């Protein structure tokens, strides 16, 4: 029992460090003037989210987070930033004139969400224990392709990805004779 308590405290310390790193790097993402640095800070935030998924016993989601988000999406961002740079792009303010208004809106949204959460009684609920034979990856795989569950949304998501890729190629394609 005492060992269990110690593990829980270690989990809380891990969560605290990860949360601090995530919030700090997220603030850097939205305030850094240099966009390449902003994309690199976004990678730090995404790694923090992967750590959180690991603490939630969602190993598959954590791996997908690293492979898809950091391996594909963040690299796509960095390439797009490098393709659209111009000399005076990094000078001048990175935020528009009404940035204080958006800061007020963001603080109000955060305050409203936490205020809503205060009045909800499910907050302090402990997570149900997982048995040693619990296999979330196998369960996820069966649920994704089972006709009684989520096979239709799964296929729709595949078609959506294909359509988005074709659309992206069509939009970004440079035709002959165009500047």
């Amino acid at each position, binding site marked *: 029992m005492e060992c269990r308590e110690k593990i829980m405290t270690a989990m809380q310390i891990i969560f605290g460090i990860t949360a601090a790193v995530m919030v700090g790097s997220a603030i850097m993402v*939205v305030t850094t003037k240099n966009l390449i640095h902003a994309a690199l800070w976004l990678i730090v935030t995404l790694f923090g989210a992967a750590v959180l998924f690991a603490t939630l016993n969602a190993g598959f989601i954590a791996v997908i987070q690293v492979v898809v988000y950091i391996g594909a999406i963040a690299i796509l961002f960095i390439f797009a930033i490098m393709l659209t740079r111009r000399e005076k792009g990094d000078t001048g303010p990175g935020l528009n004139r009404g940035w204080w208004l958006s800061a007020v809106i963001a603080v109000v949204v955060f305050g409203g969400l936490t205020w809503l959460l205060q009045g909800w009684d499910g907050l302090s609920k402990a997570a149900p224990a997982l048995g040693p034979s619990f296999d979330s990856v196998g369960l996820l795989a069966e649920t994704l392709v089972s006709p009684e569950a989520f096979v239709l949304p799964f296929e729709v998501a595949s078609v959506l990805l294909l359509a988005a890729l074709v659309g*992206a190629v069509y939009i970004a394609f440079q035709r002959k004779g165009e500047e």
Partner: protein
Amino acid sequence: MIPLSWYLILSAALFAIGLFGVLSRKNAIAILLGIELMLNAVNINLVSFWRYNDPTRIDGQVFAVIVFAVAAAEVAVGLALVISVYRRRNTVVADEIDLMKW
């Protein structure tokens, strides 16, 4: 054990920071970075609700996987649009992309 409220408050903070980025950045790519932050906050919420409610019902993780797919599609189309606009108008500043403004 980590209480559920910690995850929810952290993801609310991430969502608010991403919302600030979407509303206040000038560069169109930076706006997309803010949208990524908001989608990640949603994913953390989905997975933590899966863990704290009934882990044998895996719906939360399924939703998270579908959010991943939608995020990838959104980034691909969004960045293609930004690159196309940059080719034609030589700008990525959202204020200067005003062709359809009346």
